[in-house]
């Protein structure tokens, strides 16, 4: 069963990577990053065997960092939207307007 968790985790990571590469919208890219973090978490939880539960602690800290990352990322997306009036990543192509 642990093997099956690993394969599902690899699949979710690949799908998240494909979302990050293909999408033009910045919020879609954030969704893809969340999927990749969740895939890593699934590995950690599947590996947490010992009585010290190390994998579950790592999963908890990854969840905390993901929450912080999403908050700051969406703040930056809103700022970019205020300035460029779009969040399409291929139209945001200048550093100083």
């Amino acid at each position, binding site marked *: 069963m642990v093997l099956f968790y690993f394969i599902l985790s690899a*699949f979710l990571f*690949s799908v998240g990577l*494909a979302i990050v590469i293909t999408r033009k919208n910045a919020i879609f890219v*954030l*969704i893809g990053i969340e999927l990749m973090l*969740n895939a890593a978490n699934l590995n950690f939880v599947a590996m947490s065997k010992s009585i010290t539960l190390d994998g*579950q602690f790592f999963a*908890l800290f990854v969840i905390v960092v993901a929450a912080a990352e999403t908050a700051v990322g969406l703040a930056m*997306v809103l700022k970019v939207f205020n300035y460029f009036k779009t969040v399409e990543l291929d139209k945001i192509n200048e550093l100083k307007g």
Partner: protein
Amino acid sequence: MIDVLIYFFSALAAISALYILFTSNILYAAFALVITFLAIAILYILANADFVAATQIMIYVGGIVVVIIFGVMLTNKLVNSAPKSGSHNKFIAFIISGVLFTLLTFAILDMNLGALGVERGNIQSLGYGLMTNYLLPFEMAAILLLLALIGATVIVSQKNVKK
């Protein structure tokens, strides 16, 4: 019985992740993300990680998805049209992620997982661990959350310079 549940919810997570990949509507993608997170939480419970599952539901489904939906609503004009978004680089992405998945699958099937199993973990040992071995990362996580909160507020609330 547990095996059947694991297969079912894994399929659910995989299908909703693929739906996020192929849909063009951002709100539909956000709600499919909820389904993915819930299925992964149930997989955590089936792997005897109850507290991580509860945390997953509270933070991801209750927090991050709500924040993402707020972002969608603040960056799209939802008056008459659905929030669509195109995609590009499809071929390159298919090649890269397909090759990555194949490599990872071969590596996983090559691993020696002989002694691995999942044991029962209870909340008591998690609490002891957070207060003893993992005290420093715990406090640093608290400071990181405070910094992210203040930073996000500062970034959004600055008056922007009109170009």
